[in-house]
């Protein structure tokens, strides 16, 4: 097993392995090397706008959607609060660190402000999780959506702490190692690094006891209880990890935009994260990143496209919606599922017999 994503099916331990076995480089398949190389060389391939506004943003949104994928794909819990968790980290960084709103911002150094922001945002996400895990399916979606909208209205109405409607601007990354991290190339590498860390962590944890048990909880919570697992505690713990990933993304997001305001985590952006994850595919950690790049490309270039066919540019949401609909219609498991089916068809017809496994109710009630 490699840094491929055979998370659902690969044995933990067909042969004896050591704990780092999942990260052994020799077994990384070629397409991954290829994508990795392109991502690393991107600054020489595309201009600063693409680098910063398109790929930087996509990697950040991909991380937030990844946190949703971790909860949804492995844990069976669809949370709409992930964008709010990211925004709360952004707000906390602005409040404890430096911003243009000097009457509120405390101006503490980054190495104090960032950990505080991460801790508070993670606590916020975990608390939401603790409320949500006792519910299932649609109710989880509703309760997290309710908390997301409460967060939106609270930040918009609270001026003492959150500076109300206008939020905070002038939030910039610290100048470290003599690098201006707000320049497109350094910022791109910064986000690429953290996105890769988040991606690999989720991939790794999915085969560790915690991740495996989380998938067990998703498939069969009752049996997990009967095996000695505290299902509620396990679900809440999943929120801890997911919230932390979203929080890291939130820090990057406020640096990308230079600002954070209630609109950062309105209902629209909250649902966009779900759309991104679904477009890409919830089954594997790479899905959210694929979804994010499609979403950002659509958002960035839909305007020109809409205007060129005589529609108002603001209606880019329409295009996103149409793409979303098409994907959900054609492939409920996202672009990733579409690609997998295509590859299976190309590989061999024998694969079709593998389908028979669906008929056998091994994991039924």
């Amino acid at each position: 097993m490699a840094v491929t994503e055979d998370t659902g099916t690969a044995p933990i331990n067909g042969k004896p392995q050591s704990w780092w076995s999942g990260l052994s480089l020799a077994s990384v398949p070629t397409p991954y090397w290829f994508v990795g190389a392109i991502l690393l060389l991107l600054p020489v391939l595309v201009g600063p706008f693409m680098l910063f506004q398109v790929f930087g943003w996509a990697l950040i949104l991909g991380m937030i959607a990844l946190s949703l994928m971790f909860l949804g794909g492995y844990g069976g819990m669809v949370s709409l609060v992930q964008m709010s968790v990211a925004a709360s980290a952004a707000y906390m960084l602005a409040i404890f660190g430096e911003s243009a709103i000097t009457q509120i911002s405390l101006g503490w150094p980054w190495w104090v402000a960032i950990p505080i922001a991460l801790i508070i945002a993670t606590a916020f996400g975990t608390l939401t999780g603790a409320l949500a895990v006792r519910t299932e399916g649609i109710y989880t979606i509703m309760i997290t959506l309710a908390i997301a909208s409460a967060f939106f209205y609270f930040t918009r109405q609270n001026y003492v702490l959150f500076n109300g409607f206008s939020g905070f601007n002038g939030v910039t990354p610290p100048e470290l190692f003599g690098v201006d991290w707000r320049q497109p190339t350094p910022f791109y590498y910064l986000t690429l690094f953290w996105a890769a860390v988040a991606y690999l962590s989720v991939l790794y944890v999915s085969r560790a006891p915690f991740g495996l048990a989380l998938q067990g909880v998703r498939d069969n919570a009752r049996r997990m209880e009967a095996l000695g697992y505290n299902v509620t505690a396990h679900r809440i713990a999943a929120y801890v990890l997911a919230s932390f990933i979203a929080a890291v993304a939130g820090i990057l997001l406020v640096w990308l935009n230079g600002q954070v305001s209630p609109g950062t985590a309105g209902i629209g952006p909250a649902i966009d994260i779900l759309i991104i994850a679904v477009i890409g595919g919830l089954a594997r950690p790479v899905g959210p990143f694929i979804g994010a790049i499609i979403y950002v490309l659509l958002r960035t270039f839909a305007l020109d496209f809409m205007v060129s066919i005589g529609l108002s540019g603001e209606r880019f949401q329409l295009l996103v919606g149409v793409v979303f609909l098409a994907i959900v219609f054609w492939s409920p498991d996202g672009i990733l599922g579409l690609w997998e089916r295509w590859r299976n068809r190309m590989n061999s017809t024998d694969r079709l017999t593998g389908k028979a496994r669906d008929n056998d109710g091994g994991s039924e009630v």
Partner: protein
Amino acid sequence: MNAMANTSSMASRLSATGTANALELRGVSKFFGALAAMQDITLTVKPGERRAVLGSNGAGKTTLFNCITGDFLPTSGVVRMFGEDVTKFPPHDRIRRGLRRTYQISLLFGGLTVIDNVYLACRGVSRNRFSLIRPGRSDALMHAAADLIEAVHLTDVHDTLVSELSYGQQRQLEIALALAGAPRFILFDEPAAGLSPTERRDLIDILNNLPGHMGYIIIEHDMDVALRVAESVTMMHNGRIFKEGKPEEIEADPEVQELYLGGGFTHG
């Protein structure tokens, strides 16, 4: 977490180990709306005791198991395990105290492999359930899981997806999951149902080879199987205990025979 739970109940269990019953139910009832699935069940099982529960479909046997494990909370009554009142405990707390069960309809993780399923079971009753480190070469639980797989004759399908197993193999896996860790008492819900004669013999061997201190209750329709694996029998009917006794007594009981005239049991 486990360790804490252990110390808190240490006192009650120390006094319990020698004398207390493995299981003690007092006046346990379970209603589904107006339906009494199980009514006023009083039952004691000694440590190491092996008992069969018989009864027609809908007699309340599975409901009895669900109330013992905590899958369902009883409507009324008290459940004690090794001297400790566990009536309100969630299932995982009872499992961590040594209780195990299998399900009548296999409840397995179809999307995971056989070894993953058994590994999860071993991990569930040990420490580090939240571990973020992948199991390594020397992981003791991985060896324990492999041993269990061998014990239920599934070594050939070690890495097979559970959804691809045959029915009989899934039943074997159910049993492996219940044997993980150090069980003190096991509930088997119709483990022999639907098995071939060979698989049935294997099952009887597995049960007879369990260490003597490991008691169990087995729900079993087949009197022939029940006689070979149990030393006492509880007969249920319409949610109540109808008869209790030695297997021979139950089999010879005229009331039992009348109740099951025309079928229910197969002999020899």
